[in-house]
């Protein structure tokens, strides 16, 4: 029998990200990932409360930074994941891309809401107000609305493959807000402090504050990865259940 030598084998990434393979390799990863996440959280909280000094300007309220900044980081990072997944849906039509995008949206929405909540509680003692319509806060609130809109759009369609393409386009358009969130503190004279961690000249913060901050950022990022894996597995199983439900309905009608 002749073999077509022009047909190439799928690469390692395609094999790894195939829904069936993903269900196989992600299952044994979940428990170790949950344990590592819990340990990193324990270390991070210990540093945040007992092994870091008060700030010379903000005093003890600087400890709010250890939950605010990781969630603010995730609000943008999760959108980045959705952005790449949307490209995967539209450009490469990858079977797992829209599953990843759909799973990430509620997680990103909650992280963004937490960033806004903790930021307002940090703002009151440091700026004297819970809220100010400045560039950073307003663009982050818009990001939350974009997340909520994307979740609503996913739920508006029964046909998830059709929804995936429409949501992907909306996600790519909504990504215009991300540079606004990121650079708003540089572009406009805002109440929010300028970028002080990821700057071209390095962090403008002592290591005693940076250490707990980076540990908490790692903890929240690991939590996101864990929840994303669980949510993706759930979405794959939901699609299987929907497919079986249709099969059962067709069998009943026949």
């Amino acid at each position, binding site marked *: 029998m002749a073999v077509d030598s022009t047909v190439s084998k799928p690469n390692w990434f395609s094999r790894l990200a195939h829904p069936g393979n993903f269900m196989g390799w992600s299952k044994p990863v979940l428990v170790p990932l949950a344990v590592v996440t819990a340990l990193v959280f324990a270390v991070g909280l210990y540093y945040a409360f007992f092994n870091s000094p008060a700030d010379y300007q903000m005093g003890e309220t600087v400890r709010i930074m250890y939950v605010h900044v990781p969630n603010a980081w995730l609000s943008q990072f999760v959108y980045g994941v959705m952005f790449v997944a949307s490209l995967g849906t539209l450009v490469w039509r990858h079977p797992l891309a829209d599953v990843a995008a759909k799973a990430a949206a509620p997680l990103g929405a909650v992280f963004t809401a937490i960033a806004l909540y903790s930021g307002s509680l940090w703002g009151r003692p440091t700026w004297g107000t819970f809220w100010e319509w400045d560039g950073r806060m307003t663009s982050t609130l818009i990001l939350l609305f974009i997340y909520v809109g994307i979740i609503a759009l996913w739920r508006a369609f029964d046909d998830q493959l059709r929804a995936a393409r429409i949501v992907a386009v909306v996600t790519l358009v909504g990504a215009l807000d991300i540079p606004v969130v990121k650079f708003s503190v540089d572009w406009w004279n805002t109440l929010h402090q300028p970028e002080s961690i990821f700057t071209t000249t390095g962090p403008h913060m002592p290591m005693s504050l940076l250490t707990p901050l980076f540990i908490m950022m790692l903890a929240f990022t690991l939590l996101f990865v864990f929840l994303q894996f669980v*949510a993706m597995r759930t979405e794959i199983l939901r699609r299987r259940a929907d497919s079986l439900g249709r099969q059962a309905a067709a069998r009943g009608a026949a």
Partner: protein
Amino acid sequence: MIGENQDIVFIVWAYVGVGVATLGLIGWVWLQSRRVKHKLAALEAQGIRRRSAGSPT
């Protein structure tokens, strides 16, 4: 080390709120997973299986 501070209430509310929201998110993701697994198990109990899952013995 955390000390006496008049702004302690903001720190407490920030951590309590973030804790509740984070645990709520974990609980919601877990509940969704459980619900879907039950639905799938109920369908398979009716003998409805994926073609790739093989025939029930």
